[in-house]
């Protein structure tokens, strides 16, 4: 298979001589999540880019959720069909570890900020892996129904209210994986925030987190898709639930449901691009050209017009403007907004890369009990 491709590529190259290697491919397959998020990428990055390069055509593949497995399969089959893949930071790290994503020099391939700050400084801590080109910061946070009669007018203000079934009775929804839930449980069990991960490394700490979660286990619906919590909140199935902040934004602001946001102890996560390892030269040239444009300061700020996720560049923050259709200011709805960012924490990716397998099997065994 590989030999055949090489032979084919060599013969094509000899036919066109040196011209082929300098050329950029005109087709690009971009992998993303579908829905509102992909739409924001289309509007903010792809459409403006296509206006500048009218002969470029873009095919979307909505496979980001299975990107890791599919990329590995493509790699093993020796048939790489994707050019640019949108993944979460944790997946980017895994793809980098597996050698499936290309390591990049951020300063070399990305535009500096308008004031000349190199890209690596402008993105700062967001670059969590050598393969990862950050795009947005989103967060896992809670939404609650603000019309629950049993709450007697109380409204939850802090993370531990999730565990308080007396003041805030009703069903909750949490994600069906250990990430964030274990951290929140420990914080509410009295572990200082900076000791959460150290505590979780020990098996006593893990039991402690699960014991805390036990308190609300029979009142909890465990979600797997980001759309679950908004739907459950809208139907009144639950009174309290965690999900991506952007989903809650559209539920509250765009669909006008009786739901409010609780930003306390939101957990940041990142989403961004990776370039699959082993792209042919012409395809790589096109991808790099697109990426340079799509990750510059203005483009990242533009994306926030369409979805309430915070741009990953520091220099983009002041440029965030109003929602493209509703006309409201997007600043206050960003997870990175200083008012919302009180008490927030960033998931420790390196830590989770180590403990994911172990904790997940423990967590699933606990769930099944």
């Amino acid at each position, binding site marked *: 298979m590989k030999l055949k491709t090489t032979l084919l590529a060599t013969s094509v190259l000899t036919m066109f001589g040196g011209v082929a290697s300098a050329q950029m491919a005109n087709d690009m397959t971009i992998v993303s999540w579908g829905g509102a998020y992909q739409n924001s990428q289309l509007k903010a990055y792809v459409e403006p880019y296509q206006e500048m390069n009218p002969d470029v055509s873009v095919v979307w593949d909505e496979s980001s*959720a*299975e990107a*890791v*497995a599919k990329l*590995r399969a493509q790699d093993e089959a020796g048939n790489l069909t994707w050019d640019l893949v949108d993944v979460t930071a944790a997946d980017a790290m*895994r793809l*980098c*570890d*597996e*050698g499936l994503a290309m*390591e990049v020099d951020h300063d070399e391939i990305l535009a500096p900020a308008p004031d000349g700050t190199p890209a690596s400084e402008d993105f700062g801590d967001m670059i969590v892996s050598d393969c990862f080109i950050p795009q947005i910061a989103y967060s896992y946070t809670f939404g609650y129904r603000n019309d629950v009669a049993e709450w007697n007018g109380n409204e939850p203000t802090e993370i531990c209210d999730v565990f308080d079934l007396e003041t805030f009775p009703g*069903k909750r929804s949490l994600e*069906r994986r250990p990430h964030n839930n274990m951290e929140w449980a420990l914080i509410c069990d009295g572990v200082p925030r900076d000791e959460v991960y150290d505590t979780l490394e020990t098996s006593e700490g893990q*039991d402690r987190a699960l014991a805390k979660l036990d308190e609300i286990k029979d009142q909890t*619906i*465990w979600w*797997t898709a980001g759309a679950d919590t908004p739907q459950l909140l809208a*139907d*009144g*199935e639950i009174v309290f639930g965690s999900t991506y902040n952007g989903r809650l934004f559209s539920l509250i602001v765009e669909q006008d449901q009786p739901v409010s946001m609780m930003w306390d102890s939101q957990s940041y996560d990142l989403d961004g691009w990776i370039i699959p390892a082993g792209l042919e030269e012409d395809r790589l040239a096109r991808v790099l050209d697109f990426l340079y444009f799509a990750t510059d300061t203005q483009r990242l700020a533009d994306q926030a017009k369409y979805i309430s996720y915070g741009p990953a560049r520091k220099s983009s923050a002041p440029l965030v403007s109003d929602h493209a259709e509703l006309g409201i200011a997007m600043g206050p709805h960003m997870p990175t907004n200083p008012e919302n960012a009180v008490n927030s924490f960033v998931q420790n990716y*390196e*830590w989770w*890369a*180590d*403990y*994911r*397998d*172990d904790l*997940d*099997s*423990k967590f*699933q*065994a*606990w*769930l*099944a009990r």
Partner: protein
Amino acid sequence: MSDQSLTSSAAAPTPSNGPMLAADGTPLKKSLNRALRRQKTRALMLIAPLLIFILVTFIAPIADMLFRSVENQIVSETLPRTVVAINEWEPEETPLPPNDAFEAIYRDIFVAAEEKTHTRLGSRLNYETTGISSLFRKSGRAVDDVGERYVDAISDALPDWKGAGPWAVLGDAAHPALPGYNDAWKDFARVSTASGDDPATEKPWELLFVALAEELRAGALNEYDGPLGTELAQLSTALEPVAPVDYRAAMVEVDEDWEDPDIWATIKTYAPPFTPGYFLNAADMKYSADGIEVKQESERLYGMLFQRTLLMSLTITLATILLGYPVAFLMANLPMRISNLLMIFVLLPFWTSLLVRTSAWKVLLQQEGVINDLLVWIGLIADDGRLVMINNATGTIIAMTHILLPFMILPLYSVMQTIPPSYVRAAKSLGATNWTAFWRVYFPQSVPGIGAGSILVFIVAIGYYITPELVGGTTGVFISNRIAYHISTSLNWGLAAALGSILLVVVLILYWTYDRIVGIDNVKLG
């Protein structure tokens, strides 16, 4: 028809003692065999295209996937020197391997980091012992500096050794007095060539400096008669005052986990090219240096999931029989006009997207859903006592029974259509009651349809995962959900393959039992 029956029946009427002969003089047995073989070959040739197609596109990929459940070459391929160095080491006797092993792991990780395969091995071993993933990632980053003092000493003594020239000369000579260097050079040449560079002009790795320095320090020059002899003598003198690198201390400085006996024991346990580790893991056991042990109660998962998958699939199969039998009976016995309409009702959901049907059940079954609302409105249940019918086993059983119902109804219907109505009429005319006529005459003839439907429904149900994932909550998920998780999220394909193999074997055993009890010949699709 078997050969034996042919020969025995042919031999019986032979009057003489000799074998019976065919027209051309060959023994009849032989010529018959030949004719049969020719027939068989012809039949085989006819199905060959299909057979090859199935082999290539179905059997081979499945076999390849299942083979991953024991495959484990990644350790010995990525850490070849270490695997040799710890071969003799017994973890029970000394907690840490000999110092050689630390030098070996330094060299292996150096090469692996250049090839970017160390993190891949890290994730592989992290499935067994938590923490190895970051240990390897960290070591790959820091391993460059371990031999710094050798690099400095050599470049200070002979500045042009900073470049590629002399290293390639030594490497090409491959002198037997420098085995460690030759080994390192081989890796260097391989990695450079793979990335499209010429090893003769590439900047030399630090590992080359280290490997050469170690050879010179060990007195390799005594037997050396290859090229660059004077330069090597010079380097040997320059290296004399340099303190030797303590690889163990250096690796521990990179990450203190290198002093953790568990890490080394894991590498040792998983060094062989094949491992039972994945299968043991799939059976809720752990394979470690101390042998095989059962996991703690709080970590056991798969046995329970297998059991649940089988039980729930069985329940679903029974439910489809109970619900499907009357429908199929009506369809087979009502006038064409009405039975066609019924058929459309059966097929319509069959053609609707699985996700749509599953989501529809969510709307119906949830606590604020249509059914609960109705029950509260009628007054059957109180508003605060709404039934929990979804996100648990009940939800999975209801939704999957509905989804799999056509798989039961269709074979039942096609079998029932072939049952002549005159049999039941005859039974009744002989004095049987309606029930007796049905139970003694009609039902036995419809059993092959039940058999076919049950096999279809059961086997489809056992591998289902989308519906349980969406409506199963925590008590209604199947083993296939975990397989899907390991394929697409944790990337632990070995464990997924082991779980899949076990599931396949369980299904085959059940099929075999079914064949023994019911007989697969009694299954009819029409």
